[in-house]
């Protein structure tokens, strides 16, 4: 008794599941996210630089935001002196979003791509989406 048929079917089912990432993507080319910096405020900047380097921000912004939050709220320290000695007022809504007023084109671009759904916007307003 071999039950070959059943084994083959089982194997095919396994393969159908296991190779899903491949066949669901093949031939598709997904454009990588291009967060837009095209806002009036940024345009007006002479040096287009965030509070920290671009690379740092790409990796660490979520944690920096948490630090900012705790510093501002819990220690009443609302001044951020970055690694180059430049001062920034700590505020998601009033510092970050002033420049990046285009949440959809900036934040959501990558968040959507990486399927992360931060709850910042449950409370914090976005200019463009403000009511």
């Amino acid at each position, binding site marked *: 008794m*071999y039950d070959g048929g059943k084994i083959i079917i089982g*194997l095919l089912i396994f393969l159908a599941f296991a190779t899903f990432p*491949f066949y669901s*993507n093949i031939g598709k080319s997904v454009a990588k996210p291009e967060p837009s910096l095209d806002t009036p405020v940024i345009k007006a900047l002479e040096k287009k630089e965030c509070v920290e380097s671009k690379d740092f921000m790409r990796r660490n912004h*979520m944690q920096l935001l948490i630090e900012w939050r705790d510093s501002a709220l819990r220690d009443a320290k609302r001044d951020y002196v970055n690694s180059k000695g430049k001062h920034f007022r700590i505020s998601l809504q009033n510092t970050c979003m002033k420049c990046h007023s285009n949440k959809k084109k900036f934040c959501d671009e990558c968040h959507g791509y990486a399927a*992360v759904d931060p709850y910042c916007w449950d409370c914090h307003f976005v200019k463009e989406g403000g009511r």
Partner: protein
Amino acid sequence: MGAMVSLVAVLVLILIAYVGVKVLSLQALFGVFIPYLAVLTFFVGFILRILKWARVPVPFHIPTTCGQQKSLPWIHYSRIESPAGTWGVVVRMAMEVLLFRSLFRNLKTELHDGPKLAYGWEKWLWLGGFVFHWSFLIVLLRHLRFFTQPVPGFVKIMDAVDGFLQIGSPHLLMTGVTLLAAVTYLLIRRFYIPQVRYISLPADYFPLFLIFGIASTGILMRYFLKVDIIKVKELTLGLASLSPKVPDGIGAIFYVHIFLISTLFAYFPFSKLVHLGGVFLSPTRNLANNSRMKRHVNPWNYPVKVHTYEEYEEEFRDKMKMAGIPVEKDEPETAEADSEESEGKE
């Protein structure tokens, strides 16, 4: 010794990836070539392994019956532990594969004074195994977010439920922690239970260390060392769509992570990890207990030499006749000893 060898092996793997990327800048090797090779090895190896098993027949119907057989209609029979039909087997297998039914039966045999043997409650191995496998599966499925675009809804839901607890940023995913905890438990029990330590081979420690390495590099990468997740997804999505590209500036930790995973994939078909497929094929579990109801055929059944009744009667005819036991050939003269061995049927 087994543990040390395995630990060193995993550390060497980590070092290889680290040096390969940091010093030799072999991003394409570790990010594209090796993963492809590993996945290919996994699929080909796994399929071949299953087919190897499939080619071997199950000559006899040997389910381990863990419950009452189906016999008289008024006797309540155990439909799952001793299934008489296909559905019972399906449920039995599902419970085995999804809930680890047999391991749930586990006991601890204790020798007390008296002497008295007692059988204690021992569900830790079940719990450890259960948490380990389910966490691993969920973690694996969660990673689909790196291999799909748009990300399917079920992956997002899984992520949301897994990250229900708002701890840290990005949110702590519970299965990552439970996976690491479970694999640690499985490792520790190999050290602490003398019997288990005695039977453990390098092949037992290695996958545990490897998975420990995978889980901890993953956790390190997500919460501590941080990589540019967008670039990572560019790479992984490129892999999935068979148009690989290697973005610059992904941290080395990512390459260590993916190299360990590649190792696991490539190692899989050649190791005990094939129990993933094997558990489905185990003849003591996946057969119905209906051997007296249904005929089962052994494909290599062959005729054997038997001792026929004729030969038997030939030898004992006189004694039988004297005892009044009926015989086939009642002629008085002793037949010429027909010593020719007769072949049985088939």
